[in-house]
């Protein structure tokens, strides 16, 4: 458990960068090389051509060393391309690694959540949102962090050139760098990051209102009120549209600003590097400033301009990532101190003034006192809505409860207690079937079960004939949430999975619902013979052989 600390830490943008520092260093380095090569390509070729022109004008063309600069130009071109390629490949590799880390983080948070509150996050669209948040966040280093580093370093490289040409050029360069890299993105962010946040939240809100309203479409239509409600939906859309306009304006204006800064930088550089010669009406360069170098300088500034333009947009991705992170961090669970106190084999269960209830509504079962001994079968009965299922779930430690539970005469907390739950098998009213093969679903009960054992347990729940009729037998892949199974088949498959666990305590919630008499008989026979548990608690409104021989508790 060395990674336990990282498992439960909150997410932050910094932790994203440091998730795999070595893996991230490669794309950063390669990207820097590519960006600098891109700037140098324009600068050097500008200098090369103007120097060549000058050499030929001076008549010294034949002694001009043209091979080295030519090679450098070609080399830079190759560097730039290869660098971009390398950056893309390594950055995507890093990104996919990050996706894996984040997914596992979400998984860990959800595992740490206690059972009673788990279902509130299990809804389809919420999970869908989590998945899309993840996809949003992993782009952050690529879209925000890297361009920023590239622009900064490109400015540093041009600054070195400027220092050699004329140190005073460093001043406008520094100002421009501050504006390009910090001020303009910051101003745009100030102007629109609120809109980005609002837009993200509105998006979720709009969606849930859509689902909420459309689920009552017919009632609202026949009452003649749909138009009012639809209008509210439209208003939300209109608000979203305004935030979108706001963001797009900020981005466009930011780009224009960035261009203006470049233009001012060029103008002031030329101003500082020369003086007005009133005789010719020309602007002459200062003594000691090489014209050819100035050409290279001006061209590299144009190249840097291309690098800083994406920075303006970065605040959008920044805001989206922040909202995504905040939402993900809502999942965050502090490390739980679950009791690791071992529990001996369950011989007797005693529940004193026991009541199971749901946190959201406070509704639940009546208060009961009951003792269940080794070898005993209990049938809990009651009219619909009397809280049978809630009681069973609380006995299973899956649902909140009040009162005291004694195991073998010793008091234990049983809610969400893994030690306790290891000794029991609980079949809820709607068990979950995974989108895997039949065999894989069954192996969740016992990973070491042989094929014979699997067939045996399928026989016990009267599913063997059905499984044999399938072309792929045990390897048949089940559709999402077991949708290609009937309700009865799903339940029996889940029961088979539980029976493989051979847990001493078996808790069954309506196992016979929708089954015919012969099938019920088969299951009862299995539960009384080969798969007989030490303790069985049954909730059912259907009579069965097991029920007839069990102690009845009427709610």
């Amino acid at each position: 458990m060395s990674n336990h600390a990282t498992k439960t830490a909150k997410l932050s943008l910094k932790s994203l960068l440091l998730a795999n520092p070595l893996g991230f260093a490669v794309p950063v380095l390669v990207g820097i090389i590519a960006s600098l090569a891109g700037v140098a390509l324009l600068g050097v070729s500008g200098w090369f051509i103007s120097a060549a022109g000058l050499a030929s004008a001076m008549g010294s063309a034949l002694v001009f060393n043209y091979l080295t600069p030519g090679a450098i130009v070609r080399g830079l071109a190759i560097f730039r391309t290869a660098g971009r390629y390398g950056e893309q490949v390594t950055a995507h590799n890093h990104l996919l690694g990050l996706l894996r880390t984040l997914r596992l983080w979400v998984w860990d948070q959800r595992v740490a959540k206690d059972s009673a509150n788990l279902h509130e996050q299990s809804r389809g669209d919420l999970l869908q949102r989590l998945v899309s948040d993840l996809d949003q966040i992993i782009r952050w280093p690529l879209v925000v962090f890297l361009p920023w580093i590239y622009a900064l370093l490109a400015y540093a490289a041009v600054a070195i050139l400027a220092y050699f040409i004329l140190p005073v050029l460093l001043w406008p360069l520094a100002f421009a760098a501050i504006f390009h890299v910090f001020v303009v993105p910051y101003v745009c962010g100030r102007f629109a990051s609120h809109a980005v946040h609002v837009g993200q939240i509105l998006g979720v809100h709009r969606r849930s209102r859509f689902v909420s309203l459309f689920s009552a479409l017919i009632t609202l239509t026949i009452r003649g009120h749909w138009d009012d409600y639809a209008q509210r939906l439209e208003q939300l859309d209109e608000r979203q549209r305004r935030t979108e306009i706001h963001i797009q304006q900020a981005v466009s204006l930011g780009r224009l600003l960035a261009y203006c800064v470049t233009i001012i930088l060029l103008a002031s550089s030329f101003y500082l590097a020369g003086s007005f010669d009133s005789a010719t009406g020309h602007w002459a360069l200062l003594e000691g400033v090489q014209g050819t170098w100035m050409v290279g300088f001006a061209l590299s500034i144009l190249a840097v301009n291309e690098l800083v333009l994406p920075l303006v947009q970065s605040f959008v991705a920044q805001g989206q990532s922040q909202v995504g992170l905040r939402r993900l961090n809502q999942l965050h669970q502090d490390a739980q101190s679950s009791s690791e106190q071992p529990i001996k084999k369950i011989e007797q269960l005693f529940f004193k003034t026991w009541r199971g209830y749901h946190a959201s509504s406070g509704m639940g079962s009546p208060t009961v006192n009951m003792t269940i001994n080794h070898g005993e079968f209990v049938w809990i009965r009651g009219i619909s809505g009397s809280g049978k299922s809630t009681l069973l779930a609380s006995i299973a430690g899956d649902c909140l409860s009040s009162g005291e539970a004694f195991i073998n005469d010793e008091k234990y907390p049983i809610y969400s207690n893994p030690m306790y739950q290891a000794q029991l098998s609980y079949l809820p009213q709607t068990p979950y079937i995974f989108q895997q093969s039949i065999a894989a679903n069954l192996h969740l009960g016992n990973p070491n079960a042989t094929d014979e054992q699997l067939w045996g347990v399928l026989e016990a729940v009267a599913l063997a004939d059905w499984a044999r009729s399938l072309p792929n037998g045990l390897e048949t892949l089940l559709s999402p949430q077991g949708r290609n199974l009937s309700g009865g088949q799903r339940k029996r498959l889940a029961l088979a999975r539980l029976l493989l666990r051979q847990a001493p305590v078996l808790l069954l919630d309506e196992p016979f619902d929708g089954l015919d008499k012969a099938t019920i008989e088969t299951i009862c026979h299995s539960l009384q013979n080969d798969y007989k548990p030490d303790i069985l608690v049954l909730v059912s409104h259907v009579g069965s052989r097991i029920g007839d021989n069990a102690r009845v508790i009427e709610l």
Partner: protein
Amino acid sequence: MRKNKEAKAARRAGRIKTPEATFLGELANQQSSKYRLAQGFGVLFTVSLVLQAWALANVFSDMALHQSFSLSLLLLGLFALLLRALANFGRERICTSASRDIRYGLRRKLVSHLTNLGPARLRIEEDAALSTRVYEQVDALDDFFSRYKPQVFMVTLIPCAILLSVAPVSWIAFLVFMMTAPLVIIFMIFVGHKAAQANRRQFSVLAMLSNQFMDLSQGLAELKRLKKTDEARQRLSDSASAYQKTTMSVLVLAFLSTATLELFASLSIAMIALYLGLGLLEVLPWQVGSSPVTLTQALFLLLLAPEFYLPLRQLGNDYHAKQKAEAAATDLLEILNTGSQDNFEDANQVAEVDYVSSASQLSLLSFRNLSWLDEGRYRLAPISADIMKGERVWLSGESGVGKSSLLHLLLGFEEDYQGQFLINGKSFQQINLPDWRAKLAWLPQTPEWVNGSIRRNLLLGLGSKEGTALPSEEDIQVALIKSQCDEFIQALPAGLDTKLTELGAGLSGGQMQRLSIARALLSKADVWLLDEPCSGLDQDTAQAVLDTLHLVSKGKTLLIVSHDTHPILWADKHWALTKGGLNEQSRNKNREAIA
């Protein structure tokens, strides 16, 4: 049929246009004036590009040769740069606004189409998935309309303009551009195709991965009980790693082809730079001692060279925008094509003989040879029957024979039926639909709830219109007692103000169904339509709900769809619907059969 014709026409034109491409094209045409304006800005952009290159080339060459330069030319160059930025700004603003208008218009159209579809929308997908289409998928069109579409124009404009301005300066440079441009385009098509394939494959694997994550997450409670969470974590981790490996091998290839393209552009820029450099030094092998270009011209060419390839490369980057838009268009078209048949036959139907007979004048509802033909298949076989006022009818039959369709007709959501359908002796087309609907109460299999308190849901759509007062607190209590909701609502800590979410806030299915009965009572509707209200409930609960219904629905006209597993013993009539039509079983026979 229409689609076929369109496809044929397109093929005749020598180009196969997919329905998606046609759809996107039509949407873009809505904003053609904006796109034309954007093209105008594009022209301005190109002109300033060439102007800037020319001015700066002059400044640079003067600077290199004479250590001085003309101020006016510098200002002209900088002004051109500013102009370029402004043109870009304008173009961007217009394109994003065009894209916004298209998307928000389309969204409004989709929502109103879904509203008109009514219950039929669920044939496409469930509401949550529909909301993804209406919001996310429509927004997925953004990049296509705001970037790809205007870029297509720039891709032809800029290289042509540059070629034109280069031609008088240097024939060799012109030829280099001319030769490389088609090669770049061929590469682009090739690369785009490859990248599209890779993209699609990656997309499906990614979807699979998300699916696995969702599946395991939804079954997390089960995994916890089975103590298999660590195994599941391992599975997630393994498949993510495996995905990383396979995707990388695909991406390496995809990027490699893009890189080749980039290299090509870079090298041709370097080639032109080298040619110009050597030319200026007068050491070109074929013309040693003379220079083909002046320094000004050389710099002019050098400044234009990267701009020549830039739009092509951008288009390559935006190519996925097109892919994304076409994928989204498939989903959106599915919505728009559902239930959008034109019903030309309606005109004939009205002219048909009116079946109004004395019998149907007495009855509230009468069907005369009513059927519903959808794409050549009977959704509902022709039926003829009557329901009197105050009669309670149980409709049963296998799934798919049209029980729900009949209810949808009654709700007024389907107009494509054949035969006659009379209400109080009047043809359904002639009655005032809102008046008729106001008489209805609708109780489907899953009750219709909005997010909000129980009270808000009970009063959903009641009152506040045409002077009808909102039911008083007393009315609510009476309705709750009648529907036997009072006990469990009193047990709730927040009572009527308990929030209902899609999860139902801990209420059981039976309790939710009882709440819809209370709502139906409050609405004072005379005609109740029930679509399998008990199918999600266990036997005992279902029976209890049906007993309540029996008591409260006395005096109402009722049409209740229910399977044989949940017989409605107290119904006045039992209709068994089959593929062949309707069999009416008398009340007594019905009871005997059940007994």
